């Protein structure tokens, strides 16, 4: 696998694993390595889908030898190729697939040539991996959606998707942590808090976690939602 390390700016470097099918796995392996042996203070890693960036704080930017840092990062990236990716926790997350929370379910079912119930069954039976935390605080891009459920994003994103909405697109699914604009196809809603500012690790779903969903009733959803 090709690994390139580049200096993006005077306070940002990037390791890129390219478009290799294993690239995201390698990003998570490097992430795991960096959790075990952190970088020097003032240099923070941030994972992308196929690449991983290192952001420099202002107090180290002025004096940093970028070429030396790039060399060190290349060494880390290469040694991470031999390492297995971070094996995260396994989370069981409740979702209510009732029609009132699934405005796109019928269209998705039609697009895939399936019954709506079958779409739900396929989604619930999947095992997903948090491949990227991005877009919004606590928003996890979860890979592993059944190929048969592959639908494009909405042509026109909704101006406002409610907090907890579960969307699918391509081979990924995700839950919107807060109300926001969104272009994914909504097939359910999760009552849990995805980004909790009272916690030291505010994200419910973290990079590399395995996620399974279970279906709950509207009553159960309402009960959990009001306990938020």
């Amino acid at each position, binding site marked *: 696998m090709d690994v390139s390390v580049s200096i993006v700016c*005077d306070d940002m470097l990037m390791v890129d694993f390219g478009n290799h099918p294993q690239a995201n796995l390698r990003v998570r392996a490097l992430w795991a390595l960096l959790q075990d042996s952190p970088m020097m203070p003032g240099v923070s890693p*941030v994972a*992308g889908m196929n*690449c991983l960036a290192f952001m420099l704080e202002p107090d180290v930017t002025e004096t940093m030898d*970028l070429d030396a840092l790039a060399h060190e990062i290349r060494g880390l990236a290469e040694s991470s190729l031999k390492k297995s990716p971070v094996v995260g926790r396994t989370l069981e997350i409740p979702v209510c697939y009732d029609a009132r929370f699934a405005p796109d379910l019928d269209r998705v079912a039609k697009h895939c040539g399936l019954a709506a119930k079958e779409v739900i069954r396929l989604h619930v039976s999947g095992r997903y991996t948090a491949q990227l*935390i991005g*877009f919004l*605080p606590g928003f996890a891009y979860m890979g592993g959606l059944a190929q048969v459920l592959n639908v494009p994003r909405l042509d026109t994103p909704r101006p406002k998707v409610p907090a907890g909405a579960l969307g699918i697109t391509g081979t990924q699914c995700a839950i919107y942590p807060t109300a926001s604009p969104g272009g994914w196809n909504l097939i359910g809603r999760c009552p849990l808090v995805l980004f909790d500012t009272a916690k030291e690790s*505010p994200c419910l779903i973290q990079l590399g976690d395995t996620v399974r969903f279970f279906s709950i009733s509207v009553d159960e959803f309402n009960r959990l939602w009001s306990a938020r």
Partner: protein
Amino acid sequence: MVCAIRVEQPGLLTTIQDQGRRNYLPSALSRGGAQDAAALATANLLVGNDESAAGLEITGLGPTLFFEHQACIACCGAPVKASLSVGKDHSSPLPLHRPVIISAGATIRFAHFLRGFRAWIAFAGGIDSPVLLESRSSHLAAELGPLHITAKTRLTLGPKAAPQTQQVALRIQPGDADNAISMSPAAMIAPRWSLASHLLDEWPVLTIRVVPGRHFEYLADSERSVLFGTRWLVEPRSNRQGLALSGPALKTSEMPQIMSEPVRFGTVQLPSGGKPFVLMSEHQTTGGYPRILEVISAARPLLAQASPESRIVFLPVDLAQAKERSALGLEDQLRTRAALKEKLGW
């Protein structure tokens, strides 16, 4: 005693800001904080605070503040028109870029900016608002912290407000004509000296130094000429998350499909419409648009001054020049500290 300030008019957009949240990028929460973190840090140093103390970021049109108690403030950033008065007496201009002791019962009306768009007000003792995820700053895009200062907001200052104010007062004696300026009736006392401010010489044009981004190579030569030859107009929909620019659309047909990758304050993206978009401190942490430029670290404070109707010119530099610029910034910072040590004793 708790020092407090009452907001009488909130201004266009006034928020509580500090140095932001540095530890939550992996949770997809950008740093946020003051758009010019160094300017707020300097304002804090002027009033004897730790650099990380919370102050106000004022935008476009400033607030009106009533001081219930004596306080020491410093305003840094773009030159803002501000007047100070007690009761019905005539007002006088608020001196900028230096500590100013404001009398109890005085009102400051911050008005429009002469140049630029943002300034930062530090208060001795710092604003004592609740801490959320290690910071007091409002992150509007993530809806964290108090989202707006309103006419009903009462700002309370930290416990060191009074002793720090006294310490400044001892250094700037009102009787000493060489050292201090004051008003009659005394609404304020301030030193005659101020820190130099050399931003915004070409206002309303901002020359922003950039290095080529990861996908710059996909731009044809003709598009590069347009990118660097255009005075890009800052659109009114720009905010703390990013600057939307308008100008001739760049051809994006040769741009690659991008998987989401980490971006930062200063990343310049090129969405399919062909108009560059500059990320500000409340940016999304990852982005799937091609990135054509990266604003060098030393040039980011200038981005904070981009108002709607101002114009941005991108000036390409190389990494060596970027490093040189940031070294100059560091020297400047050290000089400021040395000067404050001499003038104020900290």
